[in-house]
């Protein structure tokens, strides 16, 4: 960087100074506006969300074709699903008497209800696909190799959790599609040797899909599994940093 000769501050400089060098801004962000390398590194290091990242990464890793952002986008889908999911929870009661009625209300009378439901559904499908593609990316770039063995295992667990999250959400609309898909799905689980029938009974809270199944799937879907997934994601992201960031050729 060349040293610039000081010039007389313009009106823009004064506004900039007032906006980013005042007491309140500094109390929130600590650093100034990220327009110098020093501030750009500080803004990543001192921000709780951005500090998932290191301050600097290898230049090959910002190439879009290296990762296609698949892992990050999977996480982004998870965040989007959380937001749309919370909005849907305001209107949805997981009881056999109300579930389907609430679905109809969400799609007809609630402001942007249909949009929120559509977003939630398509994002859920997108997340399943993205997580699978992310796994393929990691495999074909050999990124599971040492020292990242354990993070691959965590990833496989997250893949299963993604399937389970999607599966438990499938019952909630309480329409024919939901009911029979879960009947077929839990029958598959119930066919397991020895433990199958018990697992199915435990999952459904009965011998067939009913009111108890709905509340079980709801609880798993809105709190149990997301909590578990969040824990595994925390480990997953932490380990990326601990294992030296993204894999690169030796």
């Amino acid at each position, binding site marked *: 960087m060349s040293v610039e000769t000081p010039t007389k501050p313009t009106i823009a400089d004064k506004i900039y100074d007032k906006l980013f060098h005042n007491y309140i801004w500094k109390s929130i962000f600590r650093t100034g506006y*990220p327009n110098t390398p020093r501030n*750009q*590194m500080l803004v*990543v290091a001192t921000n709780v969300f951005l500090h998932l*990242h290191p*301050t*600097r*990464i*290898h*230049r*090959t890793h*910002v190439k879009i074709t290296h990762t296609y*952002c698949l892992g990050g986008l999977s996480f*982004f889908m998870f965040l989007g699903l959380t937001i749309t999911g919370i909005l849907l929870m305001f209107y949805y009661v997981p009881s056999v008497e109300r579930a*389907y009625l609430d*679905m109809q209300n969400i799609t007809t009378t609630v402001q942007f209800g*249909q949009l929120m439901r*559509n977003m939630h559904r*398509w994002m859920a499908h997108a997340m399943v696909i993205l997580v699978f593609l992310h796994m*393929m990316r990691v495999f*074909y*770039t*050999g*990124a*599971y*190799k*040492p*020292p990242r*063995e354990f993070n691959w*295992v965590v990833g*496989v*667990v997250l893949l*299963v959790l993604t*399937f389970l999250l*999607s599966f438990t959400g499938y019952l909630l609309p*309480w*329409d*024919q*599609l*939901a*009911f*029979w*898909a879960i009947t*077929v*799905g839990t*029958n*598959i*689980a119930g*066919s*397991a*040797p*020895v433990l199958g029938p018990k697992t199915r009974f435990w999952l459904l809270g009965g011998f*067939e*899909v009913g009111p108890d199944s709905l509340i079980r799937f709801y609880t798993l879907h809105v709190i149990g599994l997301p909590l578990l997934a969040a824990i595994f994601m925390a480990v997953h992201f932490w380990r990326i940093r*601990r*294992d*030296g*960031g993204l894999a*690169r*050729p030796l």
Partner: protein
Amino acid sequence: MATAVVARPVARPQARARDEEVLVWPDLVFIEFIAAMVFTITLFLLSFLVNAPLLDQANADVTPNPSKAPWYLLNLQELLLHMNAAMAGVIIPTIWLVILGAFPYFDRETEGQGKWFGTAGAIRLTVVGALVGFIGTWFLIFWDAGKLAYLIGKWSGGAISGGDTFRFLENVRSIQTQLPWPEWSTRITYLPFNLKILDSGFQHLNFPAWLVEQGIPIAVLVGLPSLMIYAMWKLGWVMTRRDALIALFSGFVAAYGVLTMVGTAFRGAGQELVYPWELTVSEGIPGQE
């Protein structure tokens, strides 16, 4: 006693190449922002254009035909048509997930990482592995649906026909039903008492049924991938564990894709194999089929 300390190759994070690094803000954060925006806008548009399905209220008395699991489980539902339910639905996926998780403990070499298809011949192994998985899975589904025997008969104008002698080759189940199995083979006692584990009992073995539902599927699922990797090894294509895994994983992805696709778009009423444009769903309401 002197203890020999064996230097174990513990993998450590690579040293950073600091002169090769760029700043996360703005170089990476910008890309992430764009990717997030592209997805947000695309999903918004999709949500404006296509509504999520909502059928009639759930009714345990009205069974749609076909009844299907969510699409990402239809691969298992498809497997279910060809073999023992416990195997298709639980045992095979569980074993496969364990194998998948064990990949890095099997292939411990660090070469070829951080680069798409970073090892020699990786693309060839991917393409051939995927082709074997794709064609093999389609072929097996086609055969087990009885379509192969039907088509051979149709295309040859009835000239090539196994008659009753070869009827047992029509699909996997006919090996049980069309062969003259002796009476005793359907009830082989292998335990002197009825071992009741939770709800089910184990004492007798119906050998033809076991062969069709478990024996042959296991042989196919273990045998075909092993055969593929063995052949590739003989050809000199598979030299390392990484090579074997590439072929195996590519075959899995292709087979998984075919199973999901067939289960989703090619299975009609009664789980018959049909073309996607012939696929109809009966709501199961009497008088409206």
